[in-house]
C-alpha cells in the first residue's frame, strides 16, 4: 500500500484514500470535432505506459476529493512529487537531482 502526498491536504496519507486516475497531461481538445479519427484514437487510448518516471493523476477521493498530478517511478513505485491539477509539468532533471540527494543522505 502506497503512501501518497496530497498537495491540497498537504499531508501524506494511505493509498486507501486515493483513486488512481490514469496518465496525466492528456488534455481534452477544445473542439474534438476537428480531430481526425487517428488523433481522436490517440486521445482516447494511446498511453505512454512509461517504464520509469510517469506523469499520472490521482484523486484523493476519500479525502479532499481533488484530482491532482504525480510523478512516480513505475519500476520502484516511488513518488518523486505530487502537484496540483493545472500546475505545469515539473522539470524531471531537477526532481531526479533532488531525489538523488535525498537518497545519499
Amino acid at each position, binding site marked *: *500500500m*502506497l*503512501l501518497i502526498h496530497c498537495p491540497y491536504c498537504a499531508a501524506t496519507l494511505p493509498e486507501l484514500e486515493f483513486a488512481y486516475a490514469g496518465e496525466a497531461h492528456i488534455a481534452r481538445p477544445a473542439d*474534438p*470535432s476537428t480531430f481526425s479519427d487517428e488523433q*481522436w484514437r490517440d486521445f482516447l487510448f494511446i498511453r505512454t505506459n512509461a517504464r520509469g518516471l510517469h506523469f499520472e493523476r490521482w*484523486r484523493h477521493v476519500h479525502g479532499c*476529493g481533488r*484530482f491532482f498530478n504525480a510523478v512516480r517511478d513505475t519500476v520502484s513505485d516511488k513518488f518523486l512529487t505530487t502537484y496540483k491539477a493545472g500546475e505545469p509539468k515539473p522539470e524531471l532533471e531537477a526532481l531526479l537531482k533532488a531525489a538523488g540527494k535525498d537518497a545519499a543522505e
Partner: protein
Amino acid sequence: MSALRIPGKGRVDHAQPVRFTFDGKSYQGLAGDTLASALLANGVHLVGRSFKYHRPRGVVSAGSEEPNALVGVSRGSGREEPNTRATMQEVYDGLAAVSQNRWPCLHFDAGAGADVLHRLLPAGFYYKTFLWPKRFWDRVYEPLIRRAAGLGVAPSEPDADSYASRYAHCDVLVVGGGPAGIAAALAAARSGARVILADEQAEIGGSLLAETGARIDGQPAWDWLAAARAELEGMANVRLLPRTTAIGYYHQNMVGLAERVTDHLAAPPQHAPRERMWRVRAGQVVLAQGAIERPLVFHGNDRPGVMLAGAARTYLHRYGVKVGERAVVVTSHDSAWQTAFDLADAGVSVAAIADVRAEVDSALLAGAQQRGIEILLGHTVTGTSGRLRINAVTLAAAELVATAAGRVLRCDVLLMSGGWTPSLHLFSHTQGRLAWDEASQSFLPGERTEDCHIAGAGRGLWGLGAALADGAAMGAAAARAAGFSPDMSAPTVEGDPAGSGVTTTELPGNRAAHNTRAFVDFQNDVTAKDIRLAVHEGMRSIEHVKRYTTTGMATDQGKLAGMNALAIAAETLGAPLPAVGLTTFRPPYTPTTFGAFAGYHQGETFDVTRKTPIDPWAEASGAVFEPVSLWRRARYFPKPGEDMHAAVARECRATRSAVGMMDASTLGKIEVVGPDAAEFLNRMYTNPFTRLGVGRCRYGVLLGEDGFIRDDGVIGRLAADRFHVTTTTGGAPRVLNMMEDYLQTEWPDLRVWLTSTTEQWVTVALNGPNARRLLEPLVEGQALTDEAFPHMSVSECRVAGFSARLFRVSFTGEMGFEVNVPARHGLELWELLAAAGQEHGLCVYGTEAMHVLRAEKGFIIVGQDSDGTVTPDDAGLGWAIGRRKSDFVGKRSLARPDLVARNRKQLVGLVTHDPRTVLEEGAQIVEDPNQPLPMTMIGHVTSSYWSEALGRSIALALVEGGRMRMGDMLYLPMPEGTHSARVTGTVFYDPQGERLSA
C-alpha cells in the same frame, strides 16, 4: 518424567505439566514447550514423512524454518488445520496432533514405495512420462499423481474462529526480538520514539533464550533479558508483540504482522480473535531477524535424529531437553562445538566432533579435550543408518574418503552445522539488493530501497556483543532518522560465544554421485543430484533449477535449502555464487492463515450491504430481495402461495389498473449547483439542458468519451442554478467521479459544484391511474393537475407534511410521481401512503415488476439492454442527442467509422410466434436456424418477460441492422428447440402514451 528432560532446566514451567496427544498416543509436556520440544523430551524424533518419497523425517530445527516436523492439529470440529510446524506450536492441555502424508501409519507407510522407485522419479520425471497412451492422462496418470500429492488434509468444516486486523503507526518498527532487536528497541524507545517490537516466538529474546553462559552488563544473560523486557513493557510508547511474525515488507515501510493470539491457549477467551493482522506503517524499520543455521549436505542427512546443532542447543537451554543420549556433531562452524560442550556438560555422551575444517581455534580443541570428546578434523560424513531413527554415522577423513572405509560411530542424534545464513527475507521483499560477501561467504544487505536498518546476525555479525552493539546503533540511527535524539550506549558482554566457520557445498562422500542421496530440500525431497541433473538438462538459471526440482518451493520456502541449492548449482555451472544468485524471496515470511488476511471480512461483514429506510417494511412484508451493486432491493412481494411469476403478474396488474408503489431510494442523486450548472450538464449529457425550464425535468443520457452509454437518469431543474440529477443505482459513484473529473480537470472555470445526495432522500414511486388521486390530498403547495404539473415536472412542496421534492415522471408508462422526502421521514411517508392507498387499490411492487412494466414501454435498463458497446442510436435513443450541440462527452466518438456502420446492433422488440413462449434472456438470434455450427449470430435477447397487460410474452433484443428488419421473422435455436419471433418496435404497450395523464 523422561530421562531426556533435565529437571529444573530451561524456561519451561516444570511445575505445570500438560498432556497432549500425538497420533492418538498421550504424552506429557511442560507449559512453555513447543510440540517439538515436548516430543523430543519424550524421545520421539520421527514426526512425519517427506512429500515425494515418504521418507521418515524428524525435527531438524527449533524455529519457523522447520521443513520436516509438520503435523495436523485439531481443537475439534471447525478447528482443524494441516501442516502446522511442531517447532512453533506451543503445547497446551488437550492439544491433539497427528502425523501427515502417511498411510496406514507413520511407522509403516505404504507411500514409501516411492522411495524404492526413486531411481525412476528424479527431478522433473513427470514432464518426461505419462505421455502415452494419451487418453490415460485424464483417467489414470493424473488421478494417480493427484492422489499422491499434498501433505496434510484440508479442513472439512467451516472455521469456527474469528480473525482481527489493526492499522498501527510508529516511528520505529523492530522486527526480531533477539539481542539486536531488543537493543534497537531500547535505544529507540528511550529517545521517546513510538516503537513496535515484534517477534514470531512465544517469548521475546531470540537467541538469548538459549544463552546461559554469557553475562551482559555484569548480569547473567537471562537477568538482563528480564530487565530489558520489563523496561520495554513499562514504556507507554512501546508495543511488544510476541507470537507475531512480520510476514511481508511492502511499499513505503508498510509491514504486515500476523499475531497468533489464542493458538497457545487451552481455553481461549470468548470474543478473542484467533489471529490478528497488523498493518504497520513505520517511519523507520529495524530488521533484526537473526540468522538461520545451514544444514550439511551428505548421504543420509535426512534421517530422524539428524538435526541442526543450534536447534539442539536451543532444546537444551530453553526447554531443558536433551535431544538424545549419544550425539555426534558434524560441522563446518565453531557454533556447533559450543553445542557439543553444552550437551556434554548436561550429561549427554558426545561421541565425536567431526569438523570439515583441518584447523580450528585452539580454545575449542581444549574444550573438547577437557570434556573427553573425540575430535576429528578434516572429516566428512559418508553415510548414516537407522530406519526410523539414526543409529550410526560413518565418518571419514576427507582426503581419504575414496579409499578408506571410514569409522562407524553409534549415535542416536547427529548434530550438524553448515554455518549461518543471515535472514534477509523481509529486506528482499523491498527489492533491496543483496551483496555477496566473500569473507563470510554469504549475502548481506546491499543497497536499500526503503528506510530500513539491518542489525545483528541478520547482517552477518556474529556474537552477542556485536549483536547488542549493532542493535543499539541501528535502533539509535532509526530513531534519529525519525527525528529523535537517542543516546547510543551498548551493553557490555562477557563470555560471548562468538565464532566463525566456513561454508561447504555437498560434503565429499564415498559413493558415486548419482548414487548419493544427499538431501538439500528435505520437505520436497530434492537431492544434490537432482540439482545437478537440472543444470545438465539446460536449467542454467537458478530460477529454472528451483522450478524444475522444486527446491525451495516447500512450506519452509527454502529457509534451509536455499544457500545449499545455490552452492551446488553454482558449482555444477562452474560459475561464482553471486553470478548465479538466489531465487526471489516473497511474502509471507512463514505460511499465514487465510483467516488472518481476511480479518473481519467474513459472513455479514464480508461486504457492505446497503439498505434503504424502507427495507425493514419490505422485510416484514415478506419481500424477496436481490443484490444490486451494494444495495439490497426488494424484488417482489409474494403473497402466501405465490411464486415470483404470480406475484409479479399481480403487482403489474395492480399498477396498470389502480396504483403501484415502489421504493426507488437506491437511485443515485447528485445535486448540481452553481451559475454554470446548466452549461455543465449540457456538456456532460447528450441532451440539451441550457433551456430546460425551472420546474421541468428531462431524461438524460450519459456517454463515456468512447461514445458508449454509461448511465441515464432524470434531471430536474429546481432553480436557475440548481439541478437534481438522478443516476442508476449501481452507477451513482461512477457518475459522480466522472463529473468531478471533467469539472476539476477539464472545465475548472465553470462555477458549479456537485454533492452526492443519494441518501439524503427517500424516493417513493407511485405509478398508475390512481396515483394522482392517492397523492393529491397529501400534497401542499403544488397543484397536481396536468396544467399545473404536467408530465416531466418537478416541484419543491410538502407531502404529508414533510418537505418534499416531487417529480412527475414515469418509468411504467402510467401516470407517475416520485416523492422525495428527507430520509428520516421516509418510512413514515411510506406507511402513510400504504395505508391511504388501500382505498385506491394500492399494491407495492418490486424491481421485477418494475422491469416488466418498463419493458412493456420499451424503456431500457442501462447494463441490461445496453452494455459497454451500445451507442444511444443503437439503443433507440438517438432522439436524446442534442443535434445542435457542438460538443458533449462522447460526441466525437459517435462519428468513428464503426459507430456509424450500417449493420450495428440496434434495439428492437421481439414477439414470439407462440405468445406463451417467454424467451430466455441471453438467447442468441439467427437468420437461418438450419445452418451448421458455428452459426452466424446476429443478436441476442436483452430483456424478456411475460406481459400481464398484453397477455403474451414480450422481448427486447439487440439485432444487427434491427430497425431495418421490422416484421421479419428471426430464430432462436435453443437446446430444447428453435423458437421463432417477429421483429417489432420496442414499445409494446400504449404506444401513443395516452396513459401518462389518464
